């Protein structure tokens, strides 16, 4: 028995040491050749470091609802910002002759047929008055009686009553019922008659896809601009809230002590103020103030800025800047309170970093997830508020359309022109829904701890 064999025999049966001898017999010469690029990549893929955003994106991609919502948001953005470039109508353009168009039309031939039919129906029964009188005169003379003025008046009155009845009958001919009778079908998109004629002559006419309102303004374009206003308001208001809230919250949380106490009392105070009411109030009061400011003459960048945005939008932003940052600041303060206990903050402080630098470089980036989620969920609430204010008539100023004010305008003819109410309402609801769902998805993706 050789020494080596003796060693082998001594191997403990439960040892976890790999049996190199037998492994070696399995290996071939090829196994020792350098790895190909593919193999290297595969190896790295397994343990590639995943950044925070990549990880979040991966999780977000799995959330079908959130992805659909994202798609809808992107679509709405295109709709609102690219759409008006495609449609050749302006939001304030009065298309004369195209008032009150429904989002469908009848072909020219069908319209002619309908007119003829109505005319035919109302014509029957009416007789020329003069002819009637002549007839009566002749009759009277033949009988040897005198045809008096009184008789003539009676005849005229009778004829008038008959004619009125006939025209009433003509009005009673319901075009809808008649269309059904004639088998006339609706075609999508609204065209006015003049536009149809132009189209028949070979000219290219852009249809009023959603119809027009009582002044002949194209509803599609107005909805696009309304969506644009809503989304811009939502995004800017959210950014405003983000800046103020993040600044306030991080300072309050980082400084702590007395500063924090005072700042939190202020927050509590604002928290208790009923926001909706104060926003309504600010919007009401700001409108005349700013209007006077704009009209007071003189120039300057601020003034032109105010007049571009319109007083109502500015007051909306002021309201958001004053009241709505509170939630954001609370969330960020809570995060900062936790984070500032971390060692890296102590380290940064030991290295002599200033408070501002620590907040900017260490604290805020570490609560970015919360910030993004809260900002994103702020957008629908701002849109909601904007539409609410516009609906009540203190939102976006008049020439600029807003989804809320379009809905108010539509109230007057709500039952006949229901589409005017429904279209902006649906776009608005879909927009808010999409932002809400996306925000929820983002929260699940960025903050797995919160996931429910």
């Amino acid at each position, binding site marked *: 028995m050789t020494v080596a064999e003796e060693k082998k025999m001594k191997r403990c049966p439960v040892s976890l040491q790999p049996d190199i001898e037998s492994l070696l017999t399995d290996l071939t010469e090829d196994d020792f050749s350098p790895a190909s690029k593919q193999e290297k990549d595969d190896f790295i893929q397994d343990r590639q470091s995943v950044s925070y955003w990549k990880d979040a994106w991966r999780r977000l991609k799995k959330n079908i609802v959130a992805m659909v919502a994202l798609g809808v948001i992107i679509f709405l953005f295109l709709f609102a910002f690219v759409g008006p470039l495609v449609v050749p109508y302006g939001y304030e353009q009065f298309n004369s002759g195209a008032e009150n168009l429904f989002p469908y039309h009848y072909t020219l031939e069908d319209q002619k047929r309908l007119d003829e039919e109505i005319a035919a129906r109302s014509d029957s029964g009416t007789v020329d008055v003069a002819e009637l009188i002549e007839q009566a005169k002749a009759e009277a003379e033949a009988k040897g009686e005198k045809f008096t003025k009184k008789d003539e008046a009676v005849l005229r009155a009778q004829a008038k009553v008959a004619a009125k009845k006939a025209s009433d009958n003509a009005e009673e001919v319901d075009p809808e019922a008649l269309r059904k009778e004639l088998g006339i079908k609706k075609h999508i998109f609204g065209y006015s008659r003049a536009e149809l004629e132009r189209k028949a002559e070979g000219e290219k006419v852009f249809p009023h896809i959603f119809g027009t309102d009582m002044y002949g303004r194209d509803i599609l374009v107005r909805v696009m601009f309304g969506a644009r206003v809503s989304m811009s308001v939502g995004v800017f208001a959210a950014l405003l809230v983000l800046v103020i809230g993040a600044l306030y919250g991080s300072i309050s949380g980082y400084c702590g002590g007395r500063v924090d*106490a005072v700042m*939190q*009392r202020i*927050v*509590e*105070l604002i928290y*208790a*103020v*009923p926001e*909706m*009411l*104060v926003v*309504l*109030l*600010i919007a*009401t*009061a*700001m409108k*005349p*103030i700013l209007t*006077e400011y704009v009209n007071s003459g003189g120039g300057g960048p601020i003034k032109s800025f105010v007049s571009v945005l319109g007083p109502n939008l500015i007051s909306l932003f002021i309201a958001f800047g004053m009241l709505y940052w509170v939630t954001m600041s*609370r969330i960020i*303060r*809570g995060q900062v309170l936790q984070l500032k206990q971390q060692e890296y903050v102590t380290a940064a402080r030991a290295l002599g970093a200033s408070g501002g630098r620590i907040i900017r470089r260490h604290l805020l980036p570490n609560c970015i997830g919360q910030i993004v989620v809260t900002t994103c969920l702020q957008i*629908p609430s701002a849109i*909601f508020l904007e*539409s*609410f204010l516009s*609906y*009540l*008539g*203190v939102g976006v100023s008049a020439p600029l359309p807003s989804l*809320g004010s379009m*809905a*108010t305008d539509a*109230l007057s003819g*709500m*039952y006949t022109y*229901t589409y005017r*109410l*429904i279209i902006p*309402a649906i776009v*608005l*609801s879909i927009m*808010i*829904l999409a932002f*809400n*769902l996306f925000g*929820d998805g983002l929260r699940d993706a960025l903050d797995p701890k919160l996931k*429910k």
Partner: protein
Amino acid sequence: MGKYFLKRLGMALLTILLVACVTFLLMNAVPGSPWLSEKTPSETTLAALNAKYGLDQPVPVQLMKYLQNLLHGDFGVSLKMQKNRAVSSIIIEMFPISAKVGALALLWAVLVGVPLGCLAAFKRGKLTDSILRVVCTVGISMPSFVVASALLVVFAGGMATFKFFPTIFDASLGWRSYVLPCFSLGFYPMCYTARQTRSAMLDSLNQEYIKTARAKGLKNKKIIFKHALRNALIPVITYLGPQVAFTLCGGFVVESVFSIPGLGRYMVQSIQNRDYPVIMGTTIFIASFIILMNLVVDILYKVADPRISLTKGGE
């Protein structure tokens, strides 16, 4: 407890004072005098009018006087809408109507919202849950004017076959005229309550004491109603507190849509007519109501859940 109560009360009063001041100052900053819309009065008449309503004094004096009057329940008089009528009497007349509609709306919101939320929590991940979640998310994404006008179109004359309810609120018609306003006013709170109840219920079902209860062999019913639901209701109450006040004072929009002669609609009208004393009076009234409701909820909170530490401010 007493100290906490006093502190909260002081805070609430301070907030009301703040709202009153802000309201007054904002309304004061508006250019133009309230007499502008009438036939231009002569200089002397104008001076006399200003002197009568105290408008010739400096703003701080006016503010102090206004606050003093507020303390005596004097909200000033309407300048335009119901000329010379005391705002407080308008509020007293309008508030009960708003409160009735609001109370009915909230009642159905809670009675339907909470059970729906519970149902969704129990059927978590099932079809029922998904449907309820979609419905509720859609519900909180629809502004109340969308809901109200959709209801009007469908149930009150838009389609000829359904004409169940009147389009314009008329108390003499009985319950029929309450259905649509209450439904549309309560729809958002209902969906919100259901969502909150669901997530609170899920939270509470994951707690250790539920496990303990199960381990003890308690019946499902008892676990749910005695242990889970009670704790789940706390966040729901937080939401409902301010909401109660808000809804009772009338949905501004819903009241306008259905022409309900309530406080909310009146406030909107006063805003459109720029009747400043009315705007100020209604704002301060509604704001105070909401703030006091918040206070009540906070106190009830402590009673409902002794775990909540009241002394610590914030979260």
